[in-house]
Every structure is written in C-alpha cells, then in structure tokens.
C-alpha cells in the first residue's frame, strides 16, 4: 500500500525554493566535469541517491501493473567510467559500471564492462524486474448481477507477482587475435506467487507457485584462416527447469458436512454455474453450499519439467573474393524435455460426470530438433549495382509423448462417501448401495492413454534483390521473396479404459465383452483426446520488394520500403493471404540544432476467402522535431497516430434462449455452433509528447514534459457484461525536473511525475473503475566528478 502524502508537495516546494536561494554562494559556474585521475586511470563517476514519495488515488492494482514505483530511499543512478590514461592498464584498460533502481524499485539493473587490449573483453549485466500484474479484466468471468448470489470478481484470476532475475556474463579472450575464444553464461529465473484457473465442473481459482529457471552456457571460437574471412564455431547448452506447483487455496465455502470447498470463479446461476441453487445457507461462516454443485475440495498438481537443449552453430563471414560479400551459418539444436512423473489429484465434485476424485499421473517426454542454414551473398557487379541473394532453411520437429493413467471415483454428491468397485460388495445386478454411482457422462474408472503428438515445420525462403545506386544521392532496390512452408501435425493416441459394471453396458462398452467381474475394458484410439489426425499444410508465399533511399542534400534523408505479399494458403484464419507493407521515413536537418522528420508505417493484410473475410490494418503516421539552438534550452516533440483495425467472420453460440437479432445464423456448413458475427476490433491512438529543457542560469536546469495516449475504439462484445475496457482511455504523464547545482559536481535534483490513467469506465462496468492518478516526487542528490 502506498502512503498518502498530502503535504508532500508543500515540503518539496519549500525545500526546493530554499535551495534555490541559498545556492548562489555555493554554486560553481563551471559544471563541466572532466573527471579525476586515480593513479594510472582517469575516472568519471556519478551517483544519484535520494528518496521518492508517492501519492495516488484510484485502482491500486492497475497502478502496480502499469507503474509500480513505490515510496522510499532509492539509488536512482550510478555510473563509473575508468580509463587507463595510456590504454595500457595493469589489469584493465577500461571499466564501466552502471547501476540503477536499487532500494525497492521494480526494475533493477547493473552492467559491468571491463576490457584489456588484446587480452580480454568482459561484460556482465544483471536485471531484476518485479512484475506485479493485476488488470482485473483479464480472464475475468464477468459474472452477471442476475446471478443468485451475485459474485463480482474484482481482480484478475490470472494475476501474478513474479520476480525475474536475468544475468548475462560474457568473456572474450584474445579479442584482437586471429583466434579468439568466447565464453558465456546466462541465467534466468522467474518465480513468485500467481493465480490461475482450472476447469473441472467449475473454474477453480488455483494458487500457482511459479518457478522457472534457465541456465545457458556458451563456448565459442572465432578464427581467421583466410584473409578477410572469419569463421565461428559455437556450442551452447541451455538447461531449463520448470518447478511450478499448483494448489487450490481458495476453499472459502463449506458443504453441509463442514468440508471446505472452492466453488470456482464463475457465478451465473441462471446458466447453472456452478449450479442453479448453490447456496444452502448464506448466514453461516463460511457460507454453506449445496453438495449437488460442482466444487473443489482439494487440488494439487506437480510435474517438474527438465529440458536440455544443446546447440551447435558454425558461421562465417567473408569478403575473400573480390566484390563478393557473404555470410552464412548452420545451426543444429536438439532438445530433450521430460517430466519424470506428472501428478495431479482432484477431489471435489463434478455434477456433470459425478466425478468425486480424479488422479492422473505418468511420465512425459518431448524432443525438439531444429536445424537451420542461412546463406546470404552480395555480388558487387559495378560500384553502383549489386545483386543480393539471401537463402534460409529452417526446420523443426517436435515429437512428444505422454503416458498418463487416470483413475476416477464417482459419487452422487459432494458429500457422498468415496466408493470404488469391489465385486464382493457390489455383486450383480450391481444395484447394491456399495456400488459406485455413475451416469452416462461419467468417464472411465481407470484409463491409460499413450498420446504421441507431432508438430513440424519445414521452411525454405529465398530473397533475391537488385540494388542500384543512381548516384550518391539516390538508390533503390527491387526484389522478390519466396517462402515455402510445410507444416505437419500428427496425433496418435491409444488408450485402455475400464468401466465399472454400472457403466459397462453402454457407451464405449456397448457390444464389448464383459470382464468376469462385470466390468468392461476397451482398447483403441483414446477417448481422452480428440480423434487421431494427420494434417499437412503447404504454404507458398511470393513477395515483391521495393525500396528507395534518397539523400538529396546532406540535410535531407528519405527512405521507403515496400513489400507486397501473396500466399496461396494460410495456416490460421487470421494469417494474411495477401499483405502490403509500406514504410516511409523522412528526416530533415536544416541546422545542426534543428531536426525534424516524419514516418509512415502502413500494413494492410487480408485473408478474405469465403467464410473467413479477414481484413486488418495497422496504420501509423508520425512527425517529430528536436530543437537545441544552444546549451541553454532545447525542445523535443512529436505526434503519432496509430489505427489498428481487424475484422473476421466468426461463428459461436450465444445463450440458451433466442439469439439477439443482430446475429444471423451461421452459414458455415457443419458448424457446431449456430450464430455468426463479424469480430471487429478498432483501436485508434493519438500519442503526443514534448520535452522542454531550459537553463535560466548555469546552475539551474529545468526540464518539463508531457505525453499523452488518447485511445478510442470499439469491438464486438458478445458478453453484455464486458466493458470496452482498454479500448477507451486517456493516459496523461506530465513530468518536471529541477536541477540546482550546489557545488562543483554536486546537484540537488527535484523531479515530479504524474500518472493519470483514465479508462472511460461505464457505470455498468462490474469490475471498474480501473483508473488511477498518482504523483511521484523524487528528491535526490547527484554527486559526480
């Protein structure tokens, strides 16, 4: 919780004003800092430490999701540069170190670079980011108020509070020799509490203790065995550990027998979610719920994933042949991933199938083999004319298999005693009280399935271009890109299912021989998965490429790129069958202190075949300027307009009653759902900013700025409870910084930032408001030399 600091502004204003008046006697005219000599090194250093105060109102969770800057003492920035004066230091020639964000900010960063001429280059960086994420519309069931009871979910069932730590460490030995060695190590951990959901009858809110760790090791060697030619060989080993666990800690209701249960996050009693009459007694603590409703009384899942991915890469670059520049690489990677023992236990009640307990366990193994080869070459035919060819081959295949066994126990209600089939207590005709209860939807009592799934893609692409420089001011290119893809998917699943005698006469057992105890065992394509399939998709894409650059004078720079693509097939309905992409940039710098430019970036795509009718565009237009006539003031500004649009024909089902008149019947033959609509997404964003800096005196620097996102849009909304949400908002961010030089190398800095997020919440929005307004004030001292 952020502290309310209602008097913060007055304190800061007073302090800043006081400093402003007392500093003339202290301030030095010359703020140019040349650093200091420390022995054989020349050193520049700066450190900014201080305190941040925050004061905000509105939605705390959205503030944390977007900003998450808290109150307290901070290391705002620290830099250290050391340079050997004669470039021949004893242990190193140059050293640079940067740190910021320590003391509680969500983003911490450290970077260290050290090098010694001829001997080594070392770089290390460490990044830590804390990701508090809770935007309540994501995965929110948006329960209707007509439900009895009405349960409004006020936060995202998929919220998270994760912390990622990334470290990258690279060492190059003998960097300037003909043979050099590179060593690298990267570590990435991402862990913390988060929420997710799981569906068995109802959507339980699971606590996900997320933990993923990756270690990556690299050994590489570069060698020059030919003039103007470099070869590199790299060996990588990537090792991933996924140790997330899932449990249900949301047991906030009670059955009549006192058993605590989770009723899930979806509450729509009119649509039987979790059932028509879930509450038995609302006056008890906890509230007593019906045992005939779907619920979770216990859930746990574990399945530690271990993935090892060794990769080898051979690459080269050469200008060995006159007028031929070429580069290429071959990469082979083979990943093996496994879960030694996947374990899942559900206890509760699924009213549809009468399941009371489901236990799933078994091993999982997956491989991924990826091979790629690239070869790019430029032939310089004349000083003005070049032929370029780029070839890429990329192939991967992912065969995976799991061997899972699921055993189930059934009951007539959530409070029924768990009973398994026992021929001694459940003799024919299997109607004794000790016989397990099933219904027609009940799954097998014991099911073992082996699923083998395959996904593979074979890609070959070639880009051929002719480049011509008309003169030193104008050049262009024209080319053709061809991409051929074959995507293969295969699914083979084989299962053995045993049904207790009460189910053995129907369903999959119909007509099958019975076991001596009256149960039935069937084998064949598994009922636990979709039907086996073997599908292959071939896509051929052809693109026309055009490009121009112009530099009519040294002050003007223009560039234009265009690609027109046509494909004979698509893999998804929203993948483009045709697209046009245009990019234009202009930059005009009439004076050293004045710069302005424009950008257009327009992407138009479609897959407008029968029954899909997919159209989309992303159009972006922008302009910017920078003015800095003297060191005393500067002004940057810009404006950008982005229009994102998409429409796609979709079919769906909408309620059990009469459909709204706006949705016609689905015209797609064989569609299992009945209604048709045009899924429209329309997002228009105006973004503007300015940043003004002025130095009224040599010891005072004032910087003020502002940026705004103004977004409007609309989309097809199927769920009447769903608000427009992030399609209609304004986000204002003014800021200001006042630097006052107190002494040579000592600056007092006061900075202020304001975050004003205004989502245009409808009054009927069940989960709003999501807006917030926050003041952040940093008071810091910058010491540098």
């Amino acid at each position, binding site marked *: 919780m952020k502290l309310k600091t209602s008097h913060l502004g007055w304190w800061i204003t007073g302090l800043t004003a006081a400093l402003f008046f007392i500093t003339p006697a202290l301030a030095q005219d010359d703020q140019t800092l040349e650093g200091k000599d420390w022995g054989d090194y020349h050193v520049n250093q700066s450190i900014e430490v201080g305190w941040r105060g925050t004061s905000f109102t509105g939605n705390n969770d959205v503030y944390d999701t977007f900003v998450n800057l808290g109150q307290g003492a901070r290391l705002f920035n620290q830099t250290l540069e050391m340079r050997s004066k004669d*470039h021949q230091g004893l242990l190193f*020639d140059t050293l640079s170190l940067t740190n910021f964000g320590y003391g509680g900010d969500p983003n911490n960063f450290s970077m260290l670079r050290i090098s010694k001429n001829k001997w080594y280059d070392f770089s290390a960086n460490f*990044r830590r980011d804390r990701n508090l994420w809770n*935007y309540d519309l994501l995965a929110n*069931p948006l329960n209707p108020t007509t439900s009895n009871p009405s349960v409004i979910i006020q936060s995202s069932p*998929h919220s998270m509070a994760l912390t990622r730590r990334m470290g990258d460490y690279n060492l190059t030995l003998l960097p300037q020799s003909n043979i050099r060695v590179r060593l690298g190590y990267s570590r990435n951990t*991402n862990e913390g509490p988060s929420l997710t959901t799981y569906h068995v009858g109802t959507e339980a809110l699971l606590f996900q203790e997320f933990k993923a760790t*990756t270690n990556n090791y690299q050994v590489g060697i570069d060698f020059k065995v030919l003039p103007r030619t*470099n070869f590199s060989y790299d060996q990588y080993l*990537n090792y*991933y550990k996924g140790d997330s666990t899932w449990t249900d800690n949301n047991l906030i209701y009670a059955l009549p027998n006192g058993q605590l249960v989770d009723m899930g*996050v*979806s509450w729509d009693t*009119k649509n039987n979610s979790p059932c028509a009459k879930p509450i038995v007694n609302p006056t008890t603590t906890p509230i007593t719920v019906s045992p005939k409703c779907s619920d979770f009384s216990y859930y746990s899942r574990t399945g530690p994933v271990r993935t090892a991915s060794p990769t080898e890469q051979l*690459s080269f670059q050469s200008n060995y042949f006159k007028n031929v520049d070429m*580069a290429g690489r071959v990469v082979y990677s083979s990943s093996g991933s496994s879960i030694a023992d*996947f374990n899942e236990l559900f206890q509760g009640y699924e009213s549809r199938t009468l399941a009371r307990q489901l236990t799933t366990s078994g091993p999982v193994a997956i491989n*991924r083999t990826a091979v*790629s080869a690239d070869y*790019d070459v430029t032939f310089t035919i004349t000083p003005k004319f070049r032929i370029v060819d780029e070839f890429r081959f990329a192939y*991967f295949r*992912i065969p*995976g298999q799991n061997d899972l066994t699921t055993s189930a126990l059934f009951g007539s209600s959530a409070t029924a005693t768990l009973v398994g089939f026992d021929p001694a207590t459940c003799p024919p005709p299997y109607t004794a009280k000790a016989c397990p209860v099933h219904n027609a939807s009940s799954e097998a009592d014991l099911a073992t399935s082996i699923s083998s799934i395959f*996904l593979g893609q074979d890609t070959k692409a070639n880009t051929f271009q002719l480049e011509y420089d008309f003169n*030193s001011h104008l050049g262009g290119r024209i080319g053709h890109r061809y991409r051929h893809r074959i995507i293969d*998917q295969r699914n083979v699943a084989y299962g053995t299912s045993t049904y207790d005698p009460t189910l053995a006469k129907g369903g999959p057992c119909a007509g099958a021989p019975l076991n001596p105890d009256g149960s039935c065992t069937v084998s064949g394509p598994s009922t636990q*998965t979709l039907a086996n399939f073997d599908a292959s998709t071939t896509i051929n894409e052809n693109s026309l490429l055009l490009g121009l650059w112009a530099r*009519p004078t040294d002050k003007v*720079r*223009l560039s234009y790129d265009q690609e027109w693509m046509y494909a004979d097939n698509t893999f*998804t*309905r*929203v993948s483009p069958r045709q697209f*046009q992409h245009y990019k234009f940039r202009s930059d005009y710098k009439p004076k050293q202190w004045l710069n302005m430019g424009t950008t257009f970036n*327009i992407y*138009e795509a479609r897959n407008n075949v029968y029954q899909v009718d997919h*159209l989309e565009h992303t159009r972006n237009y922008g*302009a910017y300027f920078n003015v800095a006539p003297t060191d005393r003031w500067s002004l940057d500004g810009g404006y*950008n307009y982005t229009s994102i*649009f998409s429409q796609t*024909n*979709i079919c769906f*089902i*909408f*309620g059990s009653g009469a459909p709204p008149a706006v949705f016609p019947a689905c015209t797609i033959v*064989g*569609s*299992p*759902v009945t209604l048709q609509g045009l*899924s429209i*997404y329309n*997002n228009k964003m105006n973004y503007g*900013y300015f940043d003004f800096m002025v130095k009224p005196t040599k010891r005072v620097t004032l910087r003020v700025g502002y940026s705004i*996102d103004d*977004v409007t849009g609309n989309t*097809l909304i*199927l769920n009447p409870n*769903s608000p427009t949400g*992030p399609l209609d*908002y304004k986000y204002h961010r003014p800021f200001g910084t006042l630097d006052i030089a107190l002494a040579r190398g000592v600056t007092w800095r006061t900075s202020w930032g304001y975050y004003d997020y205004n989502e245009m919440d409808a009054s009927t929005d069940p989960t709003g408001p999501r807006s917030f307004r926050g003041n952040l004030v940093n008071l810091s001292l910058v010491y540098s030399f």
Partner: protein
Amino acid sequence: MDSKMKPRRVSAAMTLMIFACLLGTNLITAGTPAQTNPPKPIQDFRGDPADYVGMDTCKACHSDMYDSFEKTPHWKTTLNPSKGPEWQGCEACHGPGKKHVDAMSEAGNEAAKIEAGRKLIFSFKGVPAADISKRCLSCHTYDEEHSNFARQAHNINNVSCIDCHSPHHAKSADFLLREKQPLLCYACHSEVRADFNKPFHHRVNEGLIKCTDCHNQHGGFLTKQLRSTAAQDMVCFKCHTDKAGPFVYEHAPVKTEGCVACHTPHASSNPRLLRRSQVNLLCLECHTLTVDSGAPGTPSFHNQSAKYQACTLCHPMIHGSNANRFFFQ
C-alpha cells in the same frame, strides 16, 4: 466503413509517392554540386605506407579531434604497429594524410589552396553510407553480430555506422553511441516511441530492456533483424522461458506463426500485449470451423452469452501443455 481498406487506393498512393520521391530527389540532386570527396572502393582505401604521416602530425592541427580520439578505444590501434601505419591512429579511418599535410603546409593563407588541401584527406561528410560503413567494417566484422551488415535494413537505407556511433563525440562511452538507447533508436523509429508509451509495454523506457536485446541492429539472418535464442527459437523465449516448451501438446501457431500471432511485441493497449481487447474474440477468429481452417471450431457448449468471457479461464495453458490437449493443465 473504415474496415474496407481500399487497398488499391493505398497501393496507388504509395506508387505515386515513390515516383514523387524519385522525381523530387532527381530534381533536387540535379541542382546539387557533385560530391566533393568521392571515396575510394574499400579494397584500396588503404594506401602505400609511405603516404602515412602518423597521428602526431594530425594532432598538430586537429588537437580537439585528437583529444576526443585519445579517450576512445580506437586509440588502441596505435598500440599495434605490426600491421603498419595504415591500420593505426587517425589515418586508419581517414586514410593516408601525406598529400593533405603537404598541401596544407604549402597553402599558407590562400583559401583556394586550403580548400583543395582539405579534399586530399578522406572526410566522412557527404559520403554514401555504404562506403562509410565499409571503412568501419574493415576492422569490425570479426563476429556473427556484424556478419550480415551489408544486407541489413540500415545499410540498404543509407544509414551508416556513424549515424549511431560517433567516434569523436559519443554521448555514451559504451560503443561510442551518439545517444543512449532507446532514444537513439527513437530518433528514427518514432512510431516505436509511441508503442512503448502504451500502458502495457515491454520495459524499454524503464531501462530494463534494450531494443538491441531483441533486434540485431547490425544485421542478423532473420526478418526484422530479430535475434533468436541459442536453440534457434524465437527471441521472446529468451526471457519467457516457460513458454518455449517443447510441449507434448503445442499450440501450433505459437511455433509456426510466432508469438505475434496473438501478441503485439512492443506494446499494446490490451492486457498481456494481446492483439484484441476481448480474449474470446482472439480465439474465435481462428477457432471457427471453416473449410480450410486447421484450427478446430468451438464446440456447441461454449456459450458466449454470459460466461466464458475469456477462453483462457478454462484453457490457461494456452501456449502449450504436457498433460492436456485442450490446454486445461
């Protein structure tokens, strides 16, 4: 209606723009003086060792440039005399200086002779970007990072090394950059600045991620100059390792079309950088049964009227699952 994009009109407009640019630039260039200092081809810009004067001579007149040069890593070239003077100091980049020095010495105060003398040393001003970059790359091609520079978007759009790096006036000591990231990149890619100011964004402005973490500014082999993981997977998986798999049940588009099938990589107005504000529409756009659609259609019990607001409520393991074909767990 806005949805009808009138692609023909856009195409026509673009074509017109190309011709306008061509015409405009030709008109402008027609009146522009010829280039004053044409560069030599890369193969022969290094001259005879006898034509080199050494950096102390340069320093005598260009002390300000020398002072900045002396603080940069380029000064190290002077420590390695074994390769000859053409690889050392100022002249390693600017070429042999003897003719220039001789001419300037003889010029006295005669402006014409001074001007003529200036043309006898290579200056990077007004030189095509490709030629500037070739000079830099004659030393800096020694790794895969730079290996495809000749074919990358910056080079073919006449953006040279010194548009981002400043050997004499760098603002950032690291790599002698003219400006720190991301401001350096925003200077041209202004639309990306707008992206990263959206509420849901990768933390580039916060300094946690750099543009060059995902894009190889010097080239690379992939479109958009994207980097990849060591295992030749999408660069996204370098940080989002749990989404990389491999999984028994892959959500195929993640691997075949890429994360961008559902997410906008820089930023979005929508949570989780999704392409749509309503998650169920994002799913339904693919999962509607169509003749040639590979994705299965939604079954009849997926009621869109009141519940199932987000498909991921029941299908949370949407990037891939090892236990459930429907991405339940």
